[in-house]
C-alpha cells in the first residue's frame, strides 16, 4: 500500500486473500452491431475500494460502466455482485424488479450531466427524498429532515431545499445528484465523468467533497474519467483502457508514477505536460 491510499482510507487493504469481492467481473464484452464497445474485461472490486477506469475518449469506459451497472446488457461475460445478505448473484440473472431495487437502494449512479440524474422540475428536497419514498418512507417530516441533512453534507445551503435544480449552478447540481444517490446509503456507486464539464475551481471543490464522502461512508466506487488528476485524487486502483480493452491495471500511484505500457506512459506524460 502506498501513502496515497493510506491517506485516503486508512482501513483499506486492497488484496486480502480471505476477503470476498463485492463485484466479480468475468469476460465482459459488448458490441454495438459490428462495432466494439469493450471486450473481455475481467476484474474484482473489493469492498471499500475506489477503482478508476481511465483512457481516452472512445476507449470503451462508458460502455463498460453501463454493463457493470446493468444499464446495458453485455454481449458476453458475467457480472456477479455480493448482495447485502452475503450471497453472490449474477446481475443479469436477477429479476428486473430485484435489479431495479438494487439500483435505487444499494447502488448509486452519478451521471456526467446532472440533468440525466436529477428530476429538474421538482425541488432539491424531493430529488433527495425520492429514493426514500421509493423504499416506502411515508413520513413527510422525516423525509424532509433527511433531505436537509444531506444538503448540508454536500454543502448546499438548506434554504435552497424547495428550489428546483434548474436554479442551481453546475457544481451545485452535481452535488445534489450525489446527495440524491447517497441518501439510501448505497454500498457501490458508479460515476461517469462526474467532474466533466465543470470549471477547474468547481471541480476541485467537488473532488474534495467526494473524497470525504467516500471515506466517511466507506463506499466502493467505480469511476470513469479521462482526467488522470481525478483518478490520482480519488482512486486506489486504476484500469487503463484502450480500443475496448484493459491494457494495464494496478495501484493508482504505481500506474501513474511508473506506467509499464507504452500507451499508459503516453497518457501519463500528456497529462504531465498539459
Amino acid at each position, binding site marked *: 500500500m502506498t501513502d496515497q491510499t493510506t491517506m485516503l482510507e486508512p482501513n483499506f487493504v486492497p488484496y486480502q486473500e480471505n476477503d470476498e469481492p463485492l463485484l466479480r467481473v468475468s469476460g465482459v464484452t459488448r458490441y454495438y452491431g459490428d462495432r466494439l464497445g469493450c471486450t473481455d474485461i475481467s476484474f474484482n472490486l473489493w469492498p471499500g475500494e475506489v477503482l478508476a477506469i481511465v483512457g481516452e475518449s472512445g476507449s470503451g469506459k462508458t460502455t463498460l460502466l453501463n454493463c457493470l451497472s446493468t444499464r446495458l446488457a453485455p454481449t458476453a461475460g458475467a457480472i456477479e455482485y455480493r448482495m447485502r445478505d452475503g450471497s453472490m448473484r449474477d446481475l443479469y440473472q436477477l429479476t*428486473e*424488479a430485484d435489479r*431495479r431495487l438494487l439500483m435505487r437502494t444499494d447502488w448509486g449512479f452519478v451521471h456526467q450531466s446532472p440533468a440525466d440524474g436529477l*428530476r429538474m*422540475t*421538482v*425541488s432539491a*428536497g*424531493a430529488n433527495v*427524498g*425520492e*429514493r426514500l*419514498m*421509493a*423504499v416506502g418512507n*411515508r*413520513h*413527510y*417530516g422525516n*423525509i*424532509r429532515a433527511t433531505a436537509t441533512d444531506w444538503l448540508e453534507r454536500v454543502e448546499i445551503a438548506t434554504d435552497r*431545499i*424547495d428550489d428546483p435544480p434548474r436554479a442551481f449552478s453546475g457544481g451545485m447540481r452535481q452535488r445534489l445528484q450525489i446527495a440524491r444517490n447517497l441518501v439510501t446509503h448505497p454500498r457501490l456507486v458508479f460515476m461517469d465523468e462526474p467532474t466533466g464539464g465543470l470549471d477547474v475551481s468547481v471541480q476541485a471543490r467537488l473532488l474534495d467533497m467526494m473524497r470525504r464522502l467516500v471515506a466517511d461512508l466507506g463506499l466502493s466506487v467505480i469511476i470513469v474519467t479521462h482526467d488522470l488528476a481525478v483518478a490520482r485524487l480519488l482512486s486506489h486502483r486504476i484500469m487503463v483502457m484502450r480500443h475496448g480493452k484493459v491494457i494495464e491495471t494496478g495501484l493508482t500511484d504505481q500506474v501513474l508514477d511508473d506506467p509499464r505500457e507504452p500507451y499508459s506512459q503516453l497518457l501519463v506524460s500528456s497529462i504531465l505536460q498539459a
Partner: protein
Amino acid sequence: MSAHPDTATSPDEGHYNFAYLDEQTKRMIRRAILKGIAVPGYQVPFASREMPMPYGWGTGGVQVTAAILGADDTLKVIDQGSDDTTNAVSIRGFFEKTAGVETTTRTSEASIIQTRHRIPEALLTEDQVLVYQVPIPEPLRFLEPRETETRKMHALAEYGLMHVKLYEDIARNGHIATTYAYPVEVNDRYVMDPSPTPKFDNPKMHEMAALQLFGAGREKRIYAIPPHTKVKSLDFDDHPFEVQKFEKPCGLCGAENVYLDEVILDDKGGRMFVCSDSDHCEDRRSHGHLGEMAADPAASHLASTGEERA
C-alpha cells in the same frame, strides 16, 4: 346491459347499430372491461374508435357506456354533478337516438350513470354501473413522460414517484393541495388516477357497491374498480388524506357533507353555495328540506330549473 344486436332508427340519419358502435367493436371494448375488472386499477389499452363528438367530450366514457348498454337500461349522464350542461344533454341525446333507451336525471332510477367530475351523493347500489369519462388516465405522467417507463413502474408497483408529487405539494403549500385527480391505490396494488373528480369523492370509491368503469378515449385506456373493492387515497403519515370541507350547508336544500358549488347571484357580490349534485338537491327539497336561501328571490331561478325538470 346485455348485448343487443338491434338497430335504432333516426328519421334524419338512417340506421345505427344499437348504441352506435358495431357489435365487433363493442365485444372488443367488453373484453377490455372484463380484463380491467379482473385486474382492478390496471389500465387496459383498447382500440378507441372515432365517435361523432370531439375528444374531451367524453368519448372514452361514451364507448364504455355503448359497450355495456342494453335496451332495458336507464341512463343518467352528469357533468359537474349536473344533468343539464351541454355535454350531459348531448350525450344523453346521443344514446336516446342511437339506442332508444330510457334516460333519467334521478340517480336512484338509473342503471348506468355516465359521469364527468362527480360521483353522485346518493349511495349507489349493486344494480348500478358508474362510467367515468377520463381525460388523463396515467397518474405517473406528471413526473415521468416516458410511456415505457410508466408501464414498467406499474408492472413492478414502483410508486415512489406518486409521493414525490405529494411531497412537492406540501413543500409548496404547507399541505397536500391537490384537490382533483387525487391518486388512489386500488385493491392494495395499482395506483390509479380518478381524474378529474374532486378528492371529495374519493372516499365514495372505496368499497362502492356499484361497478366503476373508466374510459379514456384519446389515451385509449379502460380501467375498472369492481364492486366492494378497497380504494385508498395516497398520503403521508403526518399529512393524512382529507376531503374538502364546506363551512355552510347547501343554500337550497340545507344538505351537509356534500360537495358544493359556488354560484354568483348578482353583480353586487351576492353568492351562495349549492349542491353540485343537482338531483340530490332536488330530491331533498321535494322531501321538504330547505336551505336558508331557498326562499330568496335571487336564488329562485336555481330552484325552479330543478322543478321544471322534476
